[in-house]
Each structure stands twice: as structure tokens, then as C-alpha cells.
């Protein structure tokens, strides 16, 4: 089979501000990011599915010591950022930047709060890139 459930396809959808994953045609199980093979029943007959983008914050941190890519995006010790893991309403969990929260008071950020997907467009080395993020509803 030719695998269409690639990171390139996922990021092309992100560039269109769509959060897409895969669905196992036999069991209906959904995956985000998209998986080519269902790890439960090992089926590889999948189709694309679009997620609503709403979900629940499961875990988070506020990063003060940023990696190179985030330094380049303008984050550092004086401008820390929140990153977390969100459980989408459809079931899967995914990592994303968490915007619109008070990074100065990380203890006040609430696990369990409702968030929705938003898309961050950046230009890196003259190439446009889109990143998945979430913000409180």
C-alpha cells in the first residue's frame, strides 16, 4: 500500500488551518496525529477525518529554558511559553502550544479546562510553517 497518512500530509492540512487525523474504516477508531496502522486491530484500511479541535487540557508546563526553534520564535526566560497535552473531544490526545494562559502564574493554569485549536503561522528561513496550538474557550 502507499502510505498517505504522513507528517507532510498532516502539516499540509495544518497550513489550511484544519486538524486532520485518520480513522480505521473497520473499527471506527480515530487517531490524531494520523496513524497508518491501527495498533489495536492492526488494520491498515484508513481514511482521513477532520477533528473539531475542541478538547480538555490534560497536562502542561511553562518552559523557561527554550530550545533553538522556540528561541527563534521569540520565546526565552523573560518570555516563557506554555505547552501541553490536550485530549480532543473525539478521543485522541495531542501536544500543542497553549496560548492565552497566564504564564506568570503556572500554578493557576487548570488541568481539565476546555480548550480549542488555533493555528500559528510563522515564516522560518523564508518558508511558511503552521503550528498547532490551543487556547482556552
Amino acid at each position: 500500500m502507499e502510505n498517505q497518512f504522513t507528517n507532510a500530509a498532516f502539516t499540509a492540512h495544518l497550513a489550511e488551518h484544519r486538524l486532520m487525523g485518520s480513522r480505521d474504516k473497520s473499527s471506527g477508531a480515530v487517531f490524531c496525529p494520523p496513524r497508518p496502522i491501527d495498533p489495536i486491530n492492526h488494520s491498515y484500511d484508513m481514511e482521513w477525518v477532520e477533528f473539531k479541535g475542541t478538547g480538555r487540557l490534560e497536562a502542561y508546563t511553562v518552559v523557561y529554558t527554550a530550545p533553538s526553534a522556540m528561541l527563534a520564535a521569540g520565546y526565552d526566560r523573560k518570555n516563557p511559553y506554555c505547552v501541553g497535552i490536550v485530549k480532543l473531544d473525539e478521543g485522541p490526545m495531542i501536544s500543542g502550544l497553549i496560548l492565552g494562559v497566564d504564564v506568570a502564574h503556572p500554578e493557576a493554569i487548570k488541568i481539565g479546562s476546555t480548550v480549542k485549536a488555533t493555528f500559528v503561522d510563522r515564516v522560518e528561513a523564508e518558508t511558511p510553517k503552521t503550528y498547532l496550538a490551543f487556547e482556552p474557550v
Partner: protein
Amino acid sequence: MSSPKLARGVALVGAGMSKFGSFKGKTSRDLFVEAFVEMLESVDKGIDPKEIDALYVGNYSSDLFEGQGHIAPIMASWTGLNPLPAVRVEDACASAGVAVREGILAVASGMYDIVVVGGVEKMTDLPTEKVTDTLATAADVQYEIPAGFTFPGFYAAMATAYMNQYGATPETFMKVGIKNHNNGALNEKAQFGAKITTLMEARRASAIKKGLPVPEWETELEFLHDDKANPVIAWPMRLYDCSPVSDGAAVVLLVSEDLAQRFTDKPVFVAGMGQASDGALHDREVLSSIPSARIAGEQAYKMAGITAAEIDFAEVHDCFTVAEVIASEDLGFFARGKGWIAAEEGETSRDGSKPINLSGGLKSKGHPVGASGVGQVVEVFKQLRGQAGPRQKAGQLKYGLTHNVGGTGQTCVVHIFERRN
């Protein structure tokens, strides 16, 4: 599930390690040679290197850290072991633990009788952000790293899930760091082998010498809450919650059980082992536990025919302080959600019911990532033989456990070692 028994028994008969730390002018091979020679000298009845059948080397990323790939044959060359088969094993921070497992499997298979297993990493040549970037390649660079995650960030996120679920606080994790520094102060090989109180005194002395305001910390926790002395790296993980960037090497000698007495009257036997893999952190059903560690631990206990209660002491993968609390539950030492209470009550300290990281752990001893798994085995070898010097755990020790994690638990490998009398 893996087979619960080895085809033949395997014993540890020698162990050595370099000092862990930051060593300008020393490369992987230089550190590996130091650990190898100490291993040779540790063999009670001696070993002729000509008897060795193969070499396994745990290493995470000499390619990115040093610009040197293909290091297993180089380690064989510099230890004088060419043309023996030399194999590099890479599973991130679990590289060395998995190398130990591969060495055990090779001897158990009957293919080899005598195998050297080492681990090595040289991390301090790169600036901090490049070290962060290099470590990040152990995560999913397509779906985790673009979100902004770093390794301190992953464990910090697990800490928020754990705190939210069970009620621990950032101080719980600080107490783990204080305990591991207390242990590491007794380890001459440790990178930061000093108690937190000693570090506080040094800071005060330095301030007085420079004519600066003298910090007024009354307790270790006050020091650890000070944003200047102990800055946040990824909330709630602060500097003293994180293992350091380290250089170091460790080496052990594995032989078939029937040969053990030829090398020593005090062999240490492989009683059980387990290994499991997993996907990205966001792919797990729970974020307050590491499923691969639970599976690897269960496999190891089953193979050894014992329960967690029979483990006398453990070296666990405390790359971040929260990881030690989670490990203490994943390995069954304490019930889910109770590990933080046990840590706060001193159950995991030297004199507690379940001593964890008598060596100082990765936190105090240092974490040269591809060497750490073998470093843990070196500590268990010494403790079980009563050779751990000032940090020797008193009393009759029978079972010691090692728990080595790659990434956030994409790999976990557990070994149980036994001293028989």
C-alpha cells in the same frame, strides 16, 4: 511477552566507571578506557582480555555530541579488543540498560561466554541549547518537539498531571533532590556529590568574599524556592530538579553462570529482566505513570519469581525528580498515588524501607545519557558485594533493581540482580 527464563544463567563478575562530570579535553574513548580498566581491576581473580568474546556499547548520540559516529569499534580499538564483534546500542537514555540486556541475551544464548558491556556519553562540548536540541531528538520530532516540548518540559507536564491527580506539590520533588544529593555526597564518582546544605554554604561564602548581599536561606527548601538560586527550567521543574549535562562511562563484565567462580567468589547473578516500548507521551492513557516501566517491571519480577517487596534497594531513572516518584509506583514499591507520600516520609532515603538511588542517582551522580544504565548496574554490583564504601547500605542485601528509561518512556528496561549465599 518475552520468555520468562534465560536459556542459561548469567553473572556479573566485574564493574567499573569513570568519574561523572564535565571533562574538558576528554572524549568518549578516553572516558571509556578509564571505566574499562577499572572493570578489569575489579575482577577478584583477574581476567585475561583475550578471553572476552564481544563488546556491547550503549551510546545515545556521539554523532551529534561529538561529531563521531560508529563508536563501538572505536571503543573496541582503544580497549585493545579488535577484532571482536563490537555493537552500539541506542535507545536514548536507556541505551546502556538495553546494552546490558543485549549482552545478557548473547551470553544466555550460548553464543558467547564472556561479554563486556559498557556505556558512554560526552555531552559537555555543546552549548546548553544544542544539548537541549540533541536530547530532543529522543522524542517525536514530528509531533512533540514542534509543539515546544523539551525534555524538562515533558517531565514537568507529567508532574502537573501527577500533582493534579494525587495532591503532590513542587516541594515533594524538591525533597527527592535533597535526598539524592545527600546520597551523592557519599559517592566519590558523583558530578555534584554535595549536600544541598553544602552548596548553600558555598554560595554564602562566595557572596561574603565578593562583598555581595548574603542570602538568608534558613532551610534547604527556602534555597530551592529561591528563583535566583534555583531558577525554573520548565514549571514545576527547577534547576535542582534536573539531572546535569554530563560526561562519563561505565563498564561491566558478564559471564555465563558456570564460569562465574573462575572470576570471583562473590558473583552477582541476573535474576530477572524486562523491557517495553511505547509511543509519544501524548499517546498514553495516563500521564502520571510510565506504562513501559510497569510492563518491564512486571516481566522482571515474574522472571525472578519475586515481588517488589523483596527488592532491598533500587537505582531508578531520576532524570528529573518527578521521574523518581513515578518510578517508585511503576515498579510497585508503593501504590499508585502514594509514591509522593513515601518520598516525603523518607521511605526512599538511605535508612528508609525502600532505599532509592543510594549512588545519588542521575540527579547528583550525573547523567551521561548513554552511560547511565550501566552506571546503575555498577552501583548494584558494589552494594550487593558490600563494596560501596561510605555509602554502603548496611545489612544483608539480596536483590537490587535497576530501572532505566529512554525518552519519556518510549523505552524502559528493568534488571533485577541477586547475591546468593
